[in-house]
């Protein structure tokens, strides 16, 4: 129920830099996801928001209040830890009641709140159990219960569902998102799983090696990645990259790879020209934006050979080789080509991305 502003925040552990000049504003009631690979500084950022870690330099505001020097207990936050961090000697009820007890709420109110949260999370029958008697999913619900009982200003989640099995994880994604909408509480959610970010967040902050790469809605991140890292990190299966050469100029540039010649649209060509793209660039294209046809007389831009096919039930992933490179194509139809079969690949040129080969910056 407050905005969170991270302003020029740096984090050093001794000489190791974990977070570099971070600027993020989490809006009131927003579900913001910190997304990035292992070791990119997500947890460090979250722990600075919680007050569990000193801020090396920079400022953190909750609303207008600077919280740098406020200890965790006075920040009015609730945090869910990766390993749940339940108190083993306390029952589920006592675990969930802990923050309320520390607020000196009276017993009947505590009971009411805990039962309310337990009902919401469907763990009422477990209230008298100890954490050792719970399954992973139940522990995780208890940890979330402990966070939601007291209507904090901000929820902080550190990979709360990373240790659950795939099915439960997908179920909990929906539950958590629903819960956040219902409670209308500003939320910062850390994950390394891009699917969690894409499905749950209002906005995603993609981090890499301590540096914020891009901050935007899942749609923006997916459709307009600002650089090669973001493009490759978000999306499953990941984006295909292909080193190409630009030929032509002005309004009619084209990308050349081997004997493929891909004509770019007028606007795309102009962007490359105004941004002064080098000749050598990297093409990025998502598996969904490729078309495949079997046989040799396909008339498509690229001729390739099937390397392997991976049926996913409804969809089919096809990996195809051409020259030194390999691409993944995702198709609805299950054309069952055999490995080694010839095929043709067409690129949806409206959906393609071009990156600077040195800096990784996206031109579009």
């Amino acid at each position, binding site marked *: 129920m407050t905005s969170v502003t991270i302003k020029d925040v740096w984090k050093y552990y001794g000489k190791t830099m974990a977070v570099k000049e971070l600027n993020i504003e989490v809006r009131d009631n927003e579900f913001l996801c910190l997304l990035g690979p292992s070791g990119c500084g997500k947890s460090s950022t979250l722990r600075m928001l919680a007050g569990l870690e000193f801020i090396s330099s920079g400022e953190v505001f909750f609303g207008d209040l600077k919280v740098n020097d406020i200890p965790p207990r006075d*920040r009015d936050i609730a945090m869910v830890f990766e390993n749940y*961090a339940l108190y083993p000697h306390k029952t589920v009820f006592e675990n969930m009641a802990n923050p309320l007890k520390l607020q000196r709420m009276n017993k009947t109110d505590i009971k009411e709140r805990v039962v309310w949260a337990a009902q919401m999370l469907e763990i009422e029958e477990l209230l008298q159990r100890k954490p050792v008697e719970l399954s992973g999913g139940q522990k995780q619900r208890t940890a979330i219960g402990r966070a939601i009982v007291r209507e904090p200003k901000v929820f902080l989640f550190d990979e709360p569902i990373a240790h659950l099995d795939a099915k439960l994880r997908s179920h909990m994604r929906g539950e958590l998102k629903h819960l956040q909408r219902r409670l209308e509480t500003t939320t910062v959610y850390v994950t390394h799983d891009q699917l969690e970010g894409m499905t749950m967040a209002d906005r995603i902050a993609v981090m890499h090696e301590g540096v914020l790469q891009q901050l935007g809605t899942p749609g923006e991140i997916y459709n307009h990645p600002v650089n090669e890292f973001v493009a490759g990190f978000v999306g499953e299966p990941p984006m295909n990259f292909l080193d190409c050469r630009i030929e032509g100029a002005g309004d009619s540039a084209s990308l050349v790879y081997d004997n493929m010649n891909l004509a770019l649209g007028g606007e795309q060509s102009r962007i490359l020209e105004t941004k002064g793209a080098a000749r050598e660039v990297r093409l990025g294209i998502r598996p969904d934006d490729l078309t495949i046809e079997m046989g040799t007389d396909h008339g498509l831009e690229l001729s390739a050979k099937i390397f392997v096919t991976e049926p996913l039930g409804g969809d089919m992933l096809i990996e195809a080789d051409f020259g030194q490179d390999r691409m993944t194509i995702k198709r609805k139809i299950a054309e069952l080509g055999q490995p080694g079969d010839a095929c043709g690949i067409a690129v949806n040129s409206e959906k393609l991305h071009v990156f600077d080969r040195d800096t990784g910056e996206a031109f579009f």
Partner: protein
Amino acid sequence: MAVNTIHREPPEQSAYRGVRRVDHSPQIFNNQPARYYLMWLLLPAVLLLAAISLYPFVWLIYMSLHEVQLAPGKSDLWAGVDNFTRLFSDKSFARGWVTLFKYSALCLSVEISLGVLVAVILNNSRLEKLFITIFLMPMMMAPVVAGFLYMFLYNGTFGWYFWLLRSLGVLDGGTILGNKSWAMAGIVATDVWQWTPLIALITLAGLKRVPQEQLEANMVDGAGPLRNFFSVALPNLYPFLLIAILLRFMDNFRFIDTILIMTGGGPANATKILPTYLFDVSFKFFELGRGAAIAFTLLLLTILLGLILTKIFEDPTRKIKTDGMD
């Protein structure tokens, strides 16, 4: 176990699954002879140990049921339970128990609270390693030496502690060990000085194992440092404290070297804990039968208290509670 091994089965074998039973049990169960072989190997050692520890115990019971004769050639007289029944009317025996409990309770409470405090301070100190080395020194000392050291410190002519207490005006007359109300404090202080480090060390080991995340979660929940210690760290320390308390309470019931050296049970029996009385009965009055009876009660109570303590401090996380909500 079986679930994992099934995947490692070679394909030819899994074709037979359901027809031929493939045994995936660990080796030891298949190889019964191996276990017997081990047992025979261990047998001599086990027998020897049993004999060594059982013999004195059996002898103790024998003595407690006899009037043991010391003169050579005289055989012991059967006394039945006389040695035990006489204890009921023995005032010194009862007083010995009271003094023992007082002594043990004082030692334990001071040592535990001080030990935990020291451990917490050490845990947050940069000089942890150095301090541990220094703190360990009293523990290395033989109890008799500790006794002599403290007698020196308490000495009524040149003892530092004596001088200190006198200067502060708390000790009005006599010496520390010669004063009926100060003597107990004197021997407790010696025990505390020597054994607090052990408790601090055990607690420190426990503190290192308190999960950081639990402490952090509690901080976020709104707990201050003190609250955090009592509601998260301390419960996690219970198993460690149990070990410390068990060790110390059993030692208090056994070790009388320091007391024998320092006061011998005086003044006016103020420090005559039961084991000291037992020593007197057996080796001053030479009533070995009665001494054995006293020793037997001491043994029984030590075992009983040990069991009770284990029950109290039982790791609460292991307890399974299946009833529903109230």
